[in-house]
């Protein structure tokens, strides 16, 4: 099992080294090799789905003694939630390699950076202690810096620096929290043991728990992002290249929510109980605010970026409600959002390559020239809105059901987010695809070719699959959600 996990984690890194050492003259081989390199982690994830260990809550698989004199070790393990997110990462990586245009696929740096990103993301989802979690969380930034910096849009410098500074500012607090937890753990165990098993056995005082919760959660919430801390996201999404946007929305935002579920809530539960209402309020503001701002956007990529703020608001609402149903819904919604938004960004990327514009008003009536594209876009829009039968519905329904038990008014307000989602997505669809073609260039648009179809259709299949058979994905979420909700119940029972 440990070999499997290390292969899953290190394979992309080795792959990136292979890409970096290849001669530039064989640039046509980069894409096939990259696709091959990401099929292996994808296959491993599929294999892990059949493994019974991966269905439960977090299990430590392997521990490495790292810094002996301080007693620091790195732990790696897996749980159902991790596996789902690993699978999501592998799928999006594979499809973004399939979908990238020649301009990018013939660049060593681009392919290599994405593979390094894959390595770091896998590291986050597999790490079983705070230190390795932090290391991979921070290591994410380097490939993203180059991806956005080199292959980004016009205003990429501003967006990249903003993204980096925001994230680093958050991760500073995660770092201090890690150190704080380590020092507390040192007082009890005599070594800087930061692995999840040790942390859950420690008892923090109310004060410590609150401070640690705030530190970790603040750092992760920037990454999610939650309402007042979200301003880096639209810029980063708009300026990043298509593959960067797909991975940013599909995977990197999940890292924040994952951290809260994995670290903040289970270990610092008292802090969570203290601040959960605040988080819930901010998430609902985020849901409504993100949706309203999305309605007003004239740039389709920015619209989808703001829809991410709204959707991640749902995830955070589910997390802050903290009961079994809402937590399960939140984890499922994380996967759903990755699939839907990933697909939408990919579609926008296809359109941008044809027309080199993302302004909604530059399109109109292109349903007649691009019927396949229009159909797929509508499908993804419905998934994003949360139409029953598609994946979005499952997650949002569970979140709203669950959170209604805890916050009646807030979840009532949050439910309007679904209505607003219908407005911004369908209105954008209407403006872009229906009616008469008014701009000459749009008459010459070519519909999706087979390469583009191959790269987007698997996402649609997954959306439909989750929509009509949610029990499959739920089976991998149950244990994690159950454990977290039980911990919350125990603590709130003790407090009341």
């Amino acid at each position: 099992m440990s070999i499997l996990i290390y292969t899953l984690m290190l394979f992309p890194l080795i792959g990136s080294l292979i890409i970096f050492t290849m001669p530039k003259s064989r640039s046509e081989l980069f894409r096939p090799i990259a696709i091959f390199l990401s099929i292996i982690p994808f296959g491993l994830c599929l294999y892990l789905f059949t493994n019974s260990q991966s269905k439960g809550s977090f299990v430590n698989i392997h521990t490495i003694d790292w810094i002996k004199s301080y007693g620091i070790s790195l732990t790696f393990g897996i749980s159902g939630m991790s596996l789902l997110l690993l699978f999501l990462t592998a799928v999006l990586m594979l499809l973004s390699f399939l979908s990238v245009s020649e301009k990018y696929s013939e660049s060593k740096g681009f392919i290599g950076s994405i593979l390094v990103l894959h390595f770091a993301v896998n590291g986050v989802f597999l790490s079983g202690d705070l230190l390795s979690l932090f290391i991979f969380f921070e290591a994410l930034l380097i490939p993203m810096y180059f991806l956005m910096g080199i292959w980004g849009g016009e205003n990429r410098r501003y967006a990249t620096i903003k993204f980096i500074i925001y994230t680093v500012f958050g991760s500073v607090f995660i770092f201090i929290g890690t150190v704080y937890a380590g020092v507390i753990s040192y007082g009890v165990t005599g070594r800087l043991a930061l692995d999840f098993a040790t942390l859950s056995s420690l008892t923090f005082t109310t004060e410590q728990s609150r401070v640690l919760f705030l530190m970790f959660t603040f750092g992760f919430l920037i990454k999610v992002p939650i309402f007042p801390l979200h301003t880096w996201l639209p810029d980063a999404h708009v300026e990043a290249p298509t593959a960067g946007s797909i991975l940013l929305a599909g995977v990197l935002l999940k890292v924040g929510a994952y951290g809260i579920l994995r670290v903040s809530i289970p270990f610092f539960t008292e802090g969570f109980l203290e601040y959960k209402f605040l988080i819930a309020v901010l998430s609902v503001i985020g849901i409504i605010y993100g949706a309203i701002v999305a309605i007003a956007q004239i740039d389709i990529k920015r619209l989808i970026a703001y829809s991410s703020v709204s959707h991640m608001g749902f995830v955070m609402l589910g997390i802050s409600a903290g009961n079994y149903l809402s937590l399960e819904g939140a984890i499922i919604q994380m996967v759903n959002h990755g699939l839907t938004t990933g697909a939408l960004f990919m579609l926008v990327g296809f359109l941008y390559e044809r027309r080199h514009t993302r302004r909604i008003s530059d399109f109109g009536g292109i349903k007649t020239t691009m019927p396949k594209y229009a159909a797929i876009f509508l499908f993804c829009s419905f998934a994003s809105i949360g139409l029953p039968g598609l994946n979005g519905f499952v997650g949002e329904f569970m979140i709203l059901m669950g959170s209604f038990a805890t916050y009646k008014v807030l979840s009532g307000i949050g439910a309007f987010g679904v209505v607003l989602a219908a407005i911004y997505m369908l209105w954008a669809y209407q403006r872009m695809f229906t009616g008469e073609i008014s701009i000459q260039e749009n008459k010459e648009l070519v519909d999706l070719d087979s390469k583009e179809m191959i790269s987007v259709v698997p996402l649609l299949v997954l959306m439909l699959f989750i929509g009509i058979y949610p029990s499959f994905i739920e089976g991998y979420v149950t244990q994690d959600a159950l454990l977290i909700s039980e911990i919350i119940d125990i603590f709130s029972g003790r407090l009341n």
Partner: protein
Amino acid sequence: MSTISEAIGFNLIVIGPTLALVATALVLLFCTITIETSDFVKKTITFGGILLTIFTVFLKFGLFLTDGISSYFTEKILIDEFSLFGNVLIALILLFNFSPIWNTSNQLKDKTTEAIILALMSASGFMLMVDSESFMMLFIGLEIGSISLYALAGINRGDLLSNEAALKYFLLGSLASCVLVYGVALVYISLSISGFYDTAIAIPYIGAGNVPLTTFIGFLFIIVGLLFKVAAAPFQSWAPDVYQGSPTGYVGYMASVAKVASFLVIARLCIVSLRAVMENFELFFLAVIIISIFVGSFFATVQSDMKRLIAYSGVIQSGFILSGIVSGVNGTSASLFYITAYTIQLIGIFTIFTIISGKLSSDFSIENLSGLFVENKFLTICFSIFMLGLAGIPLTSGFISKFILITNLWSYESYVLVVILMLSTVAGFYFYLRPIWVAAIDKPETPVERITLKRSQILSLSALSFATIYFGLLPNSLINISRWVIQNYL
């Protein structure tokens, strides 16, 4: 003879590194002024001299294993873990700066071996400084080292900035030396002690409460004199100008060697000598650290000259290292790790600058890096590794050094300090990533100069970047060494 030499503790091995360096310098000087010698011979002599120095450091380890901590030459020179650590570091700094110093010297208007002679002399001085038991030896070592550095800064005589750097460095440096020697005098007249280990015995003997104020002022002056050398704010004002004005190839050496030697002496003062009365200095150190962090972070963000940027980043790093040293024994071991990692990155960066500037540029704008990636990928990757290391990105030695330092600070309950230090790393991400952006991402407007790397440069850059990554992934060895240095004081 033998009884006398035994009585005064005459032992050539103890000052072996110093002797080897001075001898090499003298041979080179002889070659330069008497007989026409080719560059190759001079290089061989220098390299041989540096290797001999490293060999004598090994001999000192042998002596230390048999004798333990002991003093020689009527308690002027001593061997302890700090001095050995310092000797090794200084020898390695010299070794890795060998190629940049020679390359820059070759570009000087009148070809000269002065630079390498001065470098060897200053290394001998700093070796003496970390070996010193008596404060007078400390002063002498510091002066031998510093005066050579003043001359090195101004060796490019035709350049105004170089002259300015030398003069500024000399004037402010002499002032700092005055302060230091005044401190030594104050300590001596108030307590009749003139050595590190004397102080360590004397202060507990008379009781920490009975130490006269004059002694404290004296030690404060000594520390201020040393803080000047490490460019901790508010004693940093020379650093940006000196870094900017001095010939690029020498800056890496000048910056690292003075910092290493001074920090080791400060560490010895804090851990050994003033251990019983450290709390009296805490406020002073806290102020220095916080001012260093703020001044460094603020000015580094607005620099457009790379050498000035590195100088201000050095001010921040000094704050970091100092914060460990004043936070107890474990913190000192973290600082020793930190200073080793930092020195590696600093030398690496200046080696790259020497290669890029290609001429005796005293002005090194950030734009000079533009197009580096197009021209030479190896250099860009090395440069990125060093800069990311300075920023403290995980998987580089910079992260480990920050992590163990912050952990020690937190367990020492300096919460405010931790928050300030960590917030400065956010600013750090801004100004350390900007040069990477210019080097790796920006497309150059003008065609870039052709850069050809010598084998020695590739070798030393690979070694330095390998060390940065290696200590980031497997830091055990260096951590154990840094803990070995302070093991007696735990």
